[in-house]
């Protein structure tokens, strides 16, 4: 490609567009597998500072600020030189909820991974994205022997009409990719609908 360094002033016009997609779901739902199957996965440390977390259990005797280390998975998909997709596997444990606010800020959308054996595990993720207004699809990781009808899962989760439910097999190489396509197409449909209703 052309030399970028030769013109520092022109660099700002070459800043790529980076989009963020969150991969959420209960512990063991396959977040790491999904991020790793479509992108080069790398660990990301977020050493966050906790300052008087409201609603948390009282921390008697613990004065001042404290930090907590969260390692999450993140991966990049390069669409073009100027368009990059970043996937973040959101930490599943409840005590990391504070991280979600930043992660969901400006996110394109989210994939909620559901395990039909433990469907309730993904309720908190769904509640969160519904409240934030973050578009999401539910991806049901299922194996051949336990195929569920997508609309049955949608009813069981009490999803708003229109929220896509995708059945996929995380072991299939294209499974995760197709889930991401479903999400982006859903976001585009919502965008067009909201633009049309204005």
């Amino acid at each position, binding site marked *: 490609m052309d030399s970028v360094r030769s013109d520092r002033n022109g660099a700002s016009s070459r800043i790529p*567009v*980076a989009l963020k997609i969150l991969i959420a779901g209960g512990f063991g739902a396959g977040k790491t597998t999904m991020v790793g199957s479509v992108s080069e996965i790398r660990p990301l440390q977020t*050493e966050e500072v906790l300052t008087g977390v409201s609603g948390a259990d009282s921390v008697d005797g613990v004065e001042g*600020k404290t930090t907590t280390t969260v390692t999450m998975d*993140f991966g990049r998909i390069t669409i073009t030189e100027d*368009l990059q997709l*970043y996937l973040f596997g959101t930490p599943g444990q409840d005590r990391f909820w504070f991280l979600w606010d930043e992660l969901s800020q*400006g996110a394109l959308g989210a994939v909620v991974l559901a395990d039909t054996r433990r469907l309730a595990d993904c309720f908190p993720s769904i509640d969160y994205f519904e409240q934030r207004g973050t578009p999401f699809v539910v991806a049901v990781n299922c194996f051949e022997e336990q195929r569920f009808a997508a609309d049955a899962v949608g009813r069981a989760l009490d999803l708003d009409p229109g929220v896509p439910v995708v059945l996929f097999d995380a072991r299939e190489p294209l499974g995760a990719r197709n889930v991401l396509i479903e999400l982006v197409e859903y*976001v585009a449909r919502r965008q*067009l609908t909201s633009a049309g209703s204005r």
Partner: protein
Amino acid sequence: MPADSPGLAHDWLDHDAGPVVRPYAVTQGRVAPTGGEIDMLAFVVATAPVDHRGARLQPEHDAIVAAAWEPIPVVELASTLDLSVGVVRVLLGDLRSAGLISMHEPQAASRSHDVDVLKAVVNGLRAL
């Protein structure tokens, strides 16, 4: 009983005890960047080499500038340099104040994603 390092009575107190250092030691305990919030997908571009005269900059600052001659987002810096996102933010604040980098906040922050961009993403994903 820790049995994996039999030769050391305190295996976390030897000279290689880097990880024992608290992550925010490198920022002298500062936890917030000067000059305002920094998005984790903001792109960083180095604009000038580090000049050590007068500036209290650390090797980690140098490493960031060296990694940012091409636009690079904050998360990539953190992962590449094996620093936490919070630490990288503080260091970026220093570099921004010193005029050594420029920061470019992500356009996506508006929450309104261009449909043409979304189509390009779908096409790109299909081509994977």
